[in-house]
């Protein structure tokens, strides 16, 4: 390789390496500040600031959704497996909002450690399944549960 071209190649490598180091350090320092939301565990541990607008997310706990019969008020709990966070909201929830699915709520944490949400978003997972397959999987799961139940009662 021509010495001049070799020099230019080194210049190109230098640009890429320098940019990577600089941006890498920025990303490293950003760290968890670049998160879009806090988990219930982080909020329970006091990592989320009080009295400011934050976002919290987790899996909506099965059976936790309580809707008011005469208004748009709704209350539900989200979990990350370790901690629970109660969220209250007044408004229309997204179509994909459901128990057992992930949701992200934005608002302020009050003195009772309840998130008073001004906005609720549904977080979709990376899985895509046709309805028949999803139904079949649910059915298989139900049958397995029933089978376990009969096994248990049979053993007693």
């Amino acid at each position, binding site marked *: *390789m*021509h010495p001049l*071209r*070799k020099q*230019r*190649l*080194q*210049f*190109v490598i230098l*640009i*890429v390496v320098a*940019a*990577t180091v600089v*941006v*890498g350090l920025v*990303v490293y320092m950003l760290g*968890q500040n*670049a*998160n*879009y*939301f806090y*988990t219930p565990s982080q909020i329970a541990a006091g990592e989320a600031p009080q009295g400011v607008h934050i976002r919290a*997310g987790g899996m909506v706990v099965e059976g936790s959704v309580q809707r008011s019969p005469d208004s748009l008020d709704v209350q539900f709990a989200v979990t990350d497996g370790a901690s629970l966070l109660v969220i209250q909201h007044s408004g229309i*929830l*997204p*179509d*994909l*909002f*459901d128990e057992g*699915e992930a949701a*992200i709520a934005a608002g302020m944490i009050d003195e009772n450690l309840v998130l008073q949400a001004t*906005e*609720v*978003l*549904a*977080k*979709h*997972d*990376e*899985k*895509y*399944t*046709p*309805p*028949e*397959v*999803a*139904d079949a999987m649910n059915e298989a799961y139900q049958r397995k549960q029933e089978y376990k139940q009969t096994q248990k009662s049979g053993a007693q």
Partner: protein
Amino acid sequence: MNWLTNWSPSWQWFHRLGSPRWFYQTTGRWLPWLSLLALALLSTGLVWGLGFAPQDAKQGNSFRIIYLHVPASFLALAGYYIMAIAGAIGLIWKMKLSYMVMKSAAPIGAALTFLALFTGAIWGKPTWGTYWVWDARVTSMLILLFLYLGVLALQYAFHSNEAGNRASAILALVGTVNIPIIYKSVDWWYTLHQPATIKLTSAPSMHSDMFQPLLVMILGFYCFYTVALFLFTRAEILRRERKSTWVKELVIGAQH
């Protein structure tokens, strides 16, 4: 870097490859076949994906935007590397053709990035409940759009082609850092955007009836990208080489 120095005798092919005239003639022969292939793949993928693939259990039919969103995002990211590598070759070998490829990749990449952001917003409203969020994935993708536009803007910011080429190439190289960040953003941070469905290391978390048309669309987008890059580069060759005899002869021949 001795291995590079000792490799010198075989560099000739590389310089022949850098001839705009050779590129113009060769791609001219490939273009009809590539366009046909792109058209066949894209129409098959679209009809299959939009018309025949099963709908999603939770999202219903709105998931079908994936057949545009994911291929556009793939090529927006892959196309950035093409632009940056073309810029690096231009910087090192002072190859005119390489700079022309770099310049041509910028508007195509910007259009694909815009398509990815736009389809994502349309999908986001019924799925997430909002058109736009400032999470790590969406924001880093927006930065990609600005990088593409920046490379394009620098091309026109200088009086001489040479200065514009060098500035564009340096910006393109610096911006390569953003590509792994976009790719890994959903794993490094909590984002509203879901993690990758298609991974190199494991099976896709998508039913095969839905995945097969997506694969056809991705291949179709690769072919379409190549066609678009060839067309843009050929136009750029004619513009920048307009004073050379072969372009003059080509234009005169076309008029008769």
